[in-house]
């Protein structure tokens, strides 16, 4: 139960942050990615704020032997910069550059549903399922 409450709290803070940051607005994200237009550097501030926090806090958190509620830390074990990592990042970047939604803002579409929600969210899960069913091993 405690683990669900902390997951809920984490999700709520994350979701408020996403909405406040402007990243749930595809046009704002595309205004950042479109460096040749009227460039909007705001997303650098989102990334800077978020990484600033994790960079400092993770050092202290990961000194612990386990998470506060007793579970082991589940961290990636792969360190290789391999083909799936690179190809996956390219494919993701293409989709992100088209739509202006990465997965967090994409799922946050459900907070204010429109036609974009009912197209993007199912397509996102179909894409993930296609990779799991037929794609090469993950990076």
């Amino acid at each position, binding site marked *: 139960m405690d683990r669900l409450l902390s997951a809920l709290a984490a999700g709520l803070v994350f979701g408020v942050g996403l*909405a*406040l940051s402007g990243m749930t607005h595809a046009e704002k994200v595309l205004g950042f990615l479109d460096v040749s237009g009227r460039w909007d550097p705001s997303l650098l501030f989102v990334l800077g704020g978020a990484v600033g926090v994790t960079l400092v806090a993770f050092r202290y958190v990961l000194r612990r032997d386990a*998470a506060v509620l007793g579970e082991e830390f589940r961290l*990636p074990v792969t360190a290789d910069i391999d083909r799936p990592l690179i190809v996956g990042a390219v494919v993701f*970047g293409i989709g*992100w550059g088209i739509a202006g939604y990465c997965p967090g803002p994409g799922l946050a579409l459900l907070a204010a549903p429109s036609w974009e929600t009912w197209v993007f969210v199912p397509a*996102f899960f179909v894409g993930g399922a296609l990779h799991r069913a037929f794609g090469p091993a993950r990076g």
Partner: protein
Amino acid sequence: MDHFTPWSSLSGGILIGLGTVILLLFNGRLAGISGIAGGLLSPGRGDILWRVVFLSGLIVGAALYYRAFDGAPVARRDFPVWLLALAGALVGFGTSLGSGCTSGHGVCGLGRLSPRSAVATAIFLVTGIATTYVVRHWLGIY
């Protein structure tokens, strides 16, 4: 939404970071959204509920913000449906293949000083910039 929003974007970014830290500190999990959502497609036992609860929190958090400040995004009218569907599938496929997205590789990976995540982040940023250029300025789609 105003064009350049350094303060709200920085504050939002800090909250995203805090949510990420809460999940790692209490649950021992990295808040990579593509990984948390993708895990619903091939879940292990006892591994579903926390994912659903976290993602529901994310959606409710955004909804609460919109309710309080009236900032909900408005859907684009002329964006082609098939192109948005293709983009969604590419985002799902690519983040599954590459094991992460803006939050997993960007926020969490850079926070852990992971060279792997730094490479992935640089690649999807550059690819995203190039793609947006093609879609907007060659194809004329907004």
